């Protein structure tokens, strides 16, 4: 089938998408956007997290045809023209990246949390990242980064 969708603000029109294909496969294999990672294909690891019409989802569990006419935001859309997103900066500053495989999903889950909840407590942070696995066990630095990202985002928004 023919799939029309917007990814990170760019319109795409893709032919020959199979009914069984996932949104993740379309992003990675057809659009060359390899930020969202393919790992468990069961919604267990969160490394393929993207926003679909503003809702955080596992792209591996979204049938590609369901994204027809919808808007997708991936980790590639986080950085702006003036540099990395505050969440990305915080992950860098805190050393919250080891092998990096889980990082795109962690960044998206953190961005999603801060959209909903600018000043998250410990329980809210852990709940927001519960669906994102890091097998390097870098969770401590990741949690530091989320707290720093929250502080920086609030500081940026408080500026006149």
């Amino acid at each position, binding site marked *: 089938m023919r799939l029309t969708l917007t990814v990170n603000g760019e319109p795409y029109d893709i032919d020959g998408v199979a009914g069984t294909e996932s949104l993740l496969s379309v992003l990675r294999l057809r659009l060359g956007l390899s930020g969202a990672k393919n790992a468990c294909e069961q919604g267990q690891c969160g490394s393929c997290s993207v926003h679909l019409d503003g809702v955080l989802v596992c792209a591996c*569990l979204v049938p590609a*045809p369901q994204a027809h006419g919808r808007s997708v935001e991936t980790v590639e859309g986080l950085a702006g023209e003036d540099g990395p997103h505050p969440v990305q900066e915080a992950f860098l500053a805190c050393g919250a990246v080891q092998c990096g495989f889980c990082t795109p999903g962690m960044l998206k889950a953190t961005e999603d949390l801060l959209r909903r909840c600018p000043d998250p407590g410990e329980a809210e942070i852990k709940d927001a990242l519960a*669906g994102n696995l890091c097998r390097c066990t870098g969770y401590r630095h990741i949690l530091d980064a989320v707290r720093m990202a929250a502080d920086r985002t609030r500081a940026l928004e408080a500026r006149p």
Partner: protein
Amino acid sequence: MSRPAAMDFLLPDRLDEALHAMAAREGTVPVAGGTDVMVRLARGRERPPAAVDLTRIPGLARWERSAGRVRIGATVPYTRIAGELAGPLPGLAVAARTVGSRQIRNRGTVGGALGTASAGGDVHPVLLACDAEVELVSARGTRRVPVREFYTGPGRTVRAPDELVRAVLVPEAEGPQSYAKAGRRGALVVATCSFAVALRPSRGRVGTGIGAAADRPLPACEAERFVAGELAERRLWRSRGPLPDSVLTRFGELAAAAASPADDVRGSSAYRRHAVAVLARRALGWVWDDYRADRTAKEAACA
């Protein structure tokens, strides 16, 4: 070498179109959040002839309150149930909060849980405890089935191949409810077993539901009858007096006796039977404490 046939993916924006598609080809699979269907497709064990997307049908994505019940459309995701329905349906909201992760709750739906009918699905025990009704629809018409008659076996229900789950109707809580879940860790976990309890003081009724401890979700009918009798005999609904430990313990034993758990990767049969007794005893203790304190909900999930 034969190639698997292509699977058509239909994107109707009207219910009648979806029903027509369900009737047109046997084996057509309805899809909402995809959290079950996509896993099965990715494993390559299933290749249905067609899938029907339900997420474009506006009527399925709404909930509404009427005549003392909440009618939840089949595609309302768990995130919304947890966030929007904690007032009228505290037990269901708590169960929805324990499902998977944020990403899964954003996509997974009660309609999907009823369609898949996994014995371990978190919402089933609460739907049983609350005496919910499932609304099924097909091109042939609409019918409502009490949830206690809905599940027929492992992954099997009374839903006919051409029917869709359109909504679930859940009576608004008139007393405390709780959902207790045992699993290997505190987050993103499929229940090893679970137990829901809902008090309905006006009917002198204690509703129950057991998850992941039989081939299907099921109520603990003997335990319900036993505790209803004890509450009536001891006039505890009115006095709001404490429930004796002996009653809590017996309730747990009867709940465990209702289960027929299997051995699997998540737990042994013996462990599950023991855990059902513990969860049932605790869950009833919590809701009774809440009833005594005149509270309406208790959140509980234990790892």
